Each structure stands twice: as structure tokens, then as C-alpha cells.
């Protein structure tokens, strides 16, 4: 009887040990594949729509900013993997914020998202160092394509 109880105890300890290792490995795996994305837009609706799209992809931590100043501050604080940046925003516009972010981190990936998809805006954004440019209204597909590109 004692032998049997010791056997059960040993099995349980081994089982817990392996289970803990498995959970820790899973956490490391998830963490390695997790990306952080900052959404900067003064419209709560646009931010919500973008969050809905990102939630479909999964493994994404979402940060938000509602003006250019907040966007720069959030970037410096959290260093996200990708930024979606509106142009027309209060306090500091998206292109100014993009330039500040790039002066802080040359490798920053900032996608400009704007309803004003003119050649002039596109040129300004690309010259300022934007990673890509999306014309509003944005489709899920275009967002997913960009995220796959950075993953």
C-alpha cells in the first residue's frame, strides 16, 4: 500500500513538473510571437474599427493615441513594433509625429492612414520615412497584409 502511494506521489510530482515547463514554454512562445501596435487617430470610431480588425488576427497588444503628441509619447514609452498614424489630428499632425518618432528610433515602422490620399500627402509621408500609406476607409485585408509583412 505504501509503495503504491509513493508511486502515485512520484507520478503527480513529475506530471506537475512537466505541466509547468509546458506552460512556461507556451508563454515564451506567445511572447516571442506577440507584437505591439500603436493606433493613432483622433476618431474613437477609427480606433475601434482598427482594434476590431487586429483582434481577428490575434497575438497583438494594442496601444492607442488620440493626437500626435500622445503618439510620440506612447512610442517613446512602449516602442511598439508597428504604428498606424492618421495625418489630420489635433496638437500635432501625423507627419510631424512620424518625423519625431523616426528621429528617436530610425527603425520605427509607421504606416500613415489618411482620408487624403493625394500624391502630395503620399510623397510627403514616404519622404518623411513612412513604412506604408493606407487610404481611408481602410479594409481588413490591407491591414492584415501590412502586419504579415512585419511578422
Amino acid at each position, binding site marked *: 500500500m505504501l509503495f503504491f502511494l509513493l508511486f502515485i506521489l512520484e507520478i503527480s510530482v513529475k506530471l506537475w513538473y512537466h505541466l509547468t515547463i509546458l506552460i512556461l514554454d507556451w508563454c515564451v512562445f506567445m511572447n516571442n510571437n506577440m507584437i505591439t501596435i500603436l493606433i493613432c487617430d*483622433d*476618431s*474613437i*470610431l*477609427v480606433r*475601434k474599427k482598427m482594434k476590431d480588425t487586429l483582434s481577428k488576427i490575434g497575438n497583438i497588444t494594442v496601444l492607442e493615441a488620440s493626437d500626435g503628441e500622445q503618439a510620440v509619447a506612447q512610442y517613446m514609452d512602449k516602442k511598439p513594433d508597428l504604428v498606424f498614424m492618421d495625418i*489630420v*489630428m*489635433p496638437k500635432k499632425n501625423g507627419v510631424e509625429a512620424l518625423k519625431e518618432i523616426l528621429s528617436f528610433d530610425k527603425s520605427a515602422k509607421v504606416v500613415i492612414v*489618411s*482620408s*487624403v*490620399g*493625394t*500624391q*502630395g*500627402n503620399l510623397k510627403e509621408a514616404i519622404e518623411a520615412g513612412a513604412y506604408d500609406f493606407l487610404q*481611408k*476607409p481602410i479594409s481588413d485585408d490591407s491591414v492584415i497584409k501590412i502586419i504579415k509583412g512585419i511578422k
Partner: protein
Amino acid sequence: MYTQFFGNYLLNQQLISPDHLADALQMIKNTRVKIGILAINAGLISAEQAEEVHKEQQRTDKRMGDIMIEKGYIRESQLEALLKSQQSGHLMLGQVLIDNGYMTTSQFANALNSYKESNKITDADFYNVKDNQTKQLLTRFYDFNGVSDSKYLVGYVSLLMKNLIRFIGDDFTPMQSEKIENFQCNCCAYQEVSGPFNATVIAEADINAFLEFASRYAGEVLTEYDEMAEASVGEFLNLQNGLFSVNLSDEIGEELTLKPQTAERNMTLTNLKNTFKIPVCFSFGTVNFILCL
């Protein structure tokens, strides 16, 4: 676009009252165009023949299409084509007006023909309007004469109508524009644009119409007047102005500068100059677009 302006044509010709139009727009969603109206629209039968078929249908238990074939007004193949034809908004409006006794079938048929003739449009134009046709229609429809800086106004309003159809729905009738000096806004979102076209553009409505407009643009039901509802109407304006800037950039190589959109309740506009109100009657209520030039 011709579909949207047909209701207004009926008003201008004093064939219906604004109240009847408002009633009809509310009922339009639940309407199906009957074969008689489709046959009139296709030019297969006259209004008198449609009336005759309608009376016979009330006496007998036959379908309208079958009666028309029996009388030799249309062929079976034509009936099949009619049954497959589109439930266009202007025909749905006509059906509601006739069903409610606001117009007779003859009045509707005559109005439809004269509308087509006066605008030199074919049936195909109702479904596929070319850009220059839209601008011509708007120029005939809106009186922007006497407005300084009106060069790009027709192009702006033309894009607005297209965006309303694209993002909100096609169940609306634009009403005549009105020059205003003072206005009391209920719920509104607005955005200022500058460049070759300088304007503050306001979208205004009572709370119910504002929420429905916001819901349709957001693609979700918004029942409370809150930041999300304001953002939704504001974002529609932002999109309209952004796309207009793209058009201007393509046409004349110049761009607009947009300011962030804002929303406000109970805003009072006074001492306005060069300001137009364009009411747009949707099935859920009226949304006013105010252009302060």
C-alpha cells in the same frame, strides 16, 4: 443619382407635398414595385393600360402580369425580364405614392416620362450615372449662382451625394438648397477645409436622425449620443473632404488642408455669409449639410 433626385422633381412640379414625400420615404423600405409600374417604366404599357389592368385585377383573382399578357400588352418574355428588373428607388417611391393615394398611376407615369425627357436620361442612366451627368443634374437642380467662390461647389456636392449613397444608403431625396444667415443646430459635426476650396462643412440633424446616420456609417447600432456617435458623423465628413481633396489634386494639382473634425450640440450659427443649407431627407429623418463658404 437620378433616382435620388426624382422625389425632389415631384415636389418642384407640385405633384406631391413635402409631407407626402416624407411619409413615402419612411415607407419605401417595405415596398416592392409592382409589375404595372415596372412595365410603365420600361415603356411597355401606358398609364391608362396600367389602370385598366389594375381594375381588372380587383375584379378577378389573376396576377397583373398574366392580365397584361392576356390583353396582349406584353409578351411572356417581357414579363420575365420585368420580374428580374431592379427594384430601383424612384420606382419604389412611385409605388408608395400610388398605394397611398398621393398620386394616380397616370400622374406618376407622366411625371416619370417628363423627368426622363427633361434630363435627357435613359433607364440605364438610373443605374450607371456618369460623372459629368451628375454635375449637369446638380447644376440644374441647385441654384448656386451669386455665391462667391462657388467654382468647386457643384463638384463638392456631387461627391457628397455619391458618398451618401456609398456609405449611408440610397434611400434619400436631396431637397432644394437654401441660403441661410442664421441657424440653430441640434446635433452636429463639422470640419474646416482650406485651399482652393475654403469652407466649413457641417452635418446637422435631430438626435434620432443623427444617431441613425452615425449607426449606418459606423456599421453598428448606436443608441446613445456619445463620443462614438460624434466620431462617426465627423469621420464621414473627414472622408468626404479627404476624397474631395484627392479629386482636386487629380484635376488641378492642388490640395486642401483639413482641420480635425469636431462635434457639438445646440450650436448657434449667426451672421452667416455665403452659407448654404442642403437638406437631405432619408427614410429615418432629415440631415442638413451646411456649407459655410
